[in-house]
């Protein structure tokens, strides 16, 4: 990995970085330039992998990979960042956003096995060209929510009084209004994780602290089909408020759980009933989750290579399971793509190199120390300055990274663009304060304080 060596246009932060005769590595950059480089590379990946005709974005870098509607939601939120950073023309962003919203607005919604959605929800994975369901995947609640959060971000950003921008707002509003959230309660208290046209609802619900916070906020905030506030209370029944490694924390193992909803919602100064009872915000809780990742890696109870206080990243990510097949001589099993977590596991020595950068808004000192350490030790965890899905230094490989995921994931790239932006400017958080549906949803969930009361 050398710098500069990639297909990319110059960034304002490039100036003065290249030193004559010496390729500059990412690790040589100062903090701002480093984050800018990583954010820009991730943004470019999103742009390169978007279908301009329908706005769909590939789930990952594999040839023929389908689109993930969650990645589309991230992408819709990334385009405004690109415009603000000067990486993308506003008109191009607008065109891409309109293509996306028009596609989903006119998509097949009959619940067919090869359709695109049902009752306002969408299937998790769609083919990139026609936008039809692939892999017999589920009609996904959380991924629909992440898509809609992107629609709402676009709606907030494109606020000009022009026909095209007005259309963005109208289409986004209509898409959000068309979701029949109460249907997904399936006569229970909490939202189901999904639905298959072949077998009906998935048998487990969104219960307990998870990335579904944004899902409940959107479902509560709907002005056409809201779920009752009781569903949010039911979701919280399985919250785990624990003292772990000396930190009072609302526990969830995988780091991404503590990040996804925070892309759009600024939890720094607002709190729900749970927050008030425990005296903690969800924002502070994510900071503690980062510290628990660091503490766990420092203790390294399972004896994996590389782990220490500045080398962590247990989250949902690719894994060597398929490639490495079985156990090593200690009987340790290696998993495929799965949600790894600290401190209860699963943990197979696989780390997501992008995790510290994504945690920058919450624990900048801890996260930057880890980012720099990992970049120094494991430069091969990136390809063209983009983090590959994960790596596992406990397993054999060509470099110190050991096993390296062969692909780049859209979710990771989108998350990096948006979290780094929130760290740098708070742009998405500021943007979303204007969201009617999020404001209503947060209030119905019992959130108060801070910017919500302004």
């Amino acid at each position, binding site marked *: 990995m050398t710098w500069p060596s990639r297909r990319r246009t110059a960034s304002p932060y490039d100036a003065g970085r290249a030193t004559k005769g010496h390729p500059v590595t990412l690790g040589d950059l100062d903090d701002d330039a480093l984050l800018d480089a990583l954010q820009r590379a991730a943004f470019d990946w999103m742009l390169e992998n978007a279908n301009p005709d329908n706005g769909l974005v590939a789930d990952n870098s594999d040839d023929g990979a389908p689109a993930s509607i969650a990645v589309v939601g991230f992408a819709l939120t990334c385009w405004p960042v690109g415009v603000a950073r000067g990486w993308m023309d506003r008109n191009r962003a607008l065109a891409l956003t309109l293509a996306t919203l028009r596609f989903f607005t006119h998509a097949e919604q009959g619940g067919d096995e090869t359709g695109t959605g049902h009752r306002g929800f969408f299937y998790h994975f769609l083919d990139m060209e026609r936008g039809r369901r692939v892999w017999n995947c589920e009609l996904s609640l959380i991924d629909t929510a992440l898509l809609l959060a992107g629609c709402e971000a676009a709606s907030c950003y494109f606020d000009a009084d022009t026909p095209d921008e007005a259309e963005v707002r109208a289409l986004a509003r209509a898409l959000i209004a068309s979701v029949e959230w109460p249907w997904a309660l399936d006569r229970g208290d909490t939202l189901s994780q999904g639905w298959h046209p072949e077998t009906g609802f998935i048998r487990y619900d969104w219960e307990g602290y998870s990335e579904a916070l944004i899902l409940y906020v959107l479902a509560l905030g709907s002005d056409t089909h809201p779920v009752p506030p009781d569903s949010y209370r039911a979701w919280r029944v399985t919250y785990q408020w624990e003292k772990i490694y000396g930190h009072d924390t609302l526990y969830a193992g995988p780091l991404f759980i503590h990040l996804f909803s925070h892309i759009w919602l600024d939890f720094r100064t607002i709190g729900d009933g749970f927050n008030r*009872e425990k005296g903690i915000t969800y924002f502070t809780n994510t900071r503690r989750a980062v510290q628990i990742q660091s503490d766990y890696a420092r*203790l390294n109870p399972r004896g994996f290579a590389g782990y220490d206080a500045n080398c962590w990243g247990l989250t949902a990510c690719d894994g060597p399971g398929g490639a490495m097949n079985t156990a090593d*001589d200690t009987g340790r099993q290696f998993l495929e793509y799965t949600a790894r977590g600290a401190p*209860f596991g699963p943990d197979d020595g696989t780390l997501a190199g992008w995790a510290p950068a994504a945690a920058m808004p919450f624990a900048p000192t801890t996260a930057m120390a880890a980012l720099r350490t990992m970049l120094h030790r494991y430069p091969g965890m990136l390809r063209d300055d983009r983090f590959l899905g994960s790596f596992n230094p406990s397993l054999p490989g060509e470099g110190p990274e050991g096993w390296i995921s062969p692909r780049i994931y859209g979710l990771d790239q989108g998350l990096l663009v948006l979290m780094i932006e929130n760290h740098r400017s708070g742009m998405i958080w500021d943007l979303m304060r204007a969201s009617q549906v999020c404001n209503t949803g947060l209030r119905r969930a019992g959130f108060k304080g801070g910017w919500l009361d302004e």
Partner: protein
Amino acid sequence: MNKATFDHDSTDPRLELRRNLRPDDWNNPAPAGPYNLVVIGAGPAGLTAARIAARLGARVALIEAGAIGGDCTNIGCVPTKAIIRSGKLYADARRARHFGADAAGETPDPALALQRVRKVQARISRSETAELLKSEGIDLFFGKARFADHRSVRVGDATLRFLRALVATGGVLRPPAIPGLAEIGFETVETLFDRDTLPRRMMVIGGGPLGCEMAQALCRLGVGIVLVHDAPKFLPEEERDAAQLLSESLARDGVQVHLNTTAVSARTTSEGKEITLSTGGDRFAITVDEVLTGVGRVPRIAGLDLAAAGIAADPETGIEVDDFMRTTNRRVFAAGDVCGGHMFTHVANAAARIAVRNALFFGRQRLSRQIIPWCTFTDPEIAHVGLRADQAISQGIPIKTYTVLMHENDRAITDGEETGFVKIRVRQGGDRILGATVVARHAGDMLNEITLAMERRIGLRALSGVIHAYPTQSAAIRTAADACVADRLTPRLRRLSGMWMSLLRRGG
């Protein structure tokens, strides 16, 4: 290698078991009525009740249709824990290099393991033989009991009149409802331990405690295990993290796990027993040599003619009892699995003690006042007592959980047994223990300290003052208690403490 055996007990354990627990030449005594207490069923509840009553001078009759010891000794706790121990040995042997030994040559011998199971059963049966019970003054009857009327029971031709009776007939395995399985045959824990060896490939259907225990133990003994469970996580009564650790442990042992999967049909092919499974709309078949199922249990009430005694019962939920273990017949009590609910030997024991006290001494003891722990004896063990977090929150109780990872415990580290945790749940802002979950290699033993504290209403902070021998794994409980004590040090107190220290320094 020295192959000499150090087990000089050459008694055939099958013969000894039968001689101890169901002697062929047993002659039922002539009924001496009326009895203070007639106990139907000589399992854990019945034995406990009969022995206590006899010790207290009651005239006691004990009726058993099968063998003394009930499911616990014959098909349940005792044989399963014995085979788990063998499995644990081989699991350790596979990690021997990490402890500085070479045990590569040690391979499981299922036949020897099964032989040991029967020896263990025979060994334990020596404490509850028919002759022993007779010598304790209990009139022991073998045969099927049925109520004749509100005050008498018939066994064969004999009629036993009673002042009080206790029904403790236990439970029976629920027959599986998988089309074709009955036709091709299957194993249950009732038949498994009578085998001379184990099959090469086995499917375990049901991921409850017993299913998980057997899947892991048999896998460790070299059986290729497929574990099928129809829910997204194992052990429906346990919290997510416990089930998660168990899933990882099962996978590490080599168990092929299928969650969210239902067995829909079974047939025999030239390759073996083929079970068709369904998950999320997909169907696929797996062929094995044997199927272990029937892990659910229903109360055993058939043939008792409970209606003749005016005892209300339901085939699914068992005999209807109040909190004092009394049935709808005021003279008849019931205890153990026949009452449904928590089907554990220790609960049966506790219920039997309450029933005897209430039946013979006009006691008013309530089962609901008992703190009931339980443990799933997988590796790691999963032990639980009291409320789960979600149960407390559902009841509107604000709680806080003190979590100690076993990898923070020195003894767990020295023993290479770092998988697991101690979680103790207290009322937020206080230290009254509401519940606990321990996942650890010896979680069942560790939990007892917490159960004692709950039973005697000892707060968690008080456990911080109890000196625990170092290094022990149960010191993890004290670590949790220390964290609870530390929480009292509020920022204000810390400031005050800092001021005091400052004053001391100034004073020289």
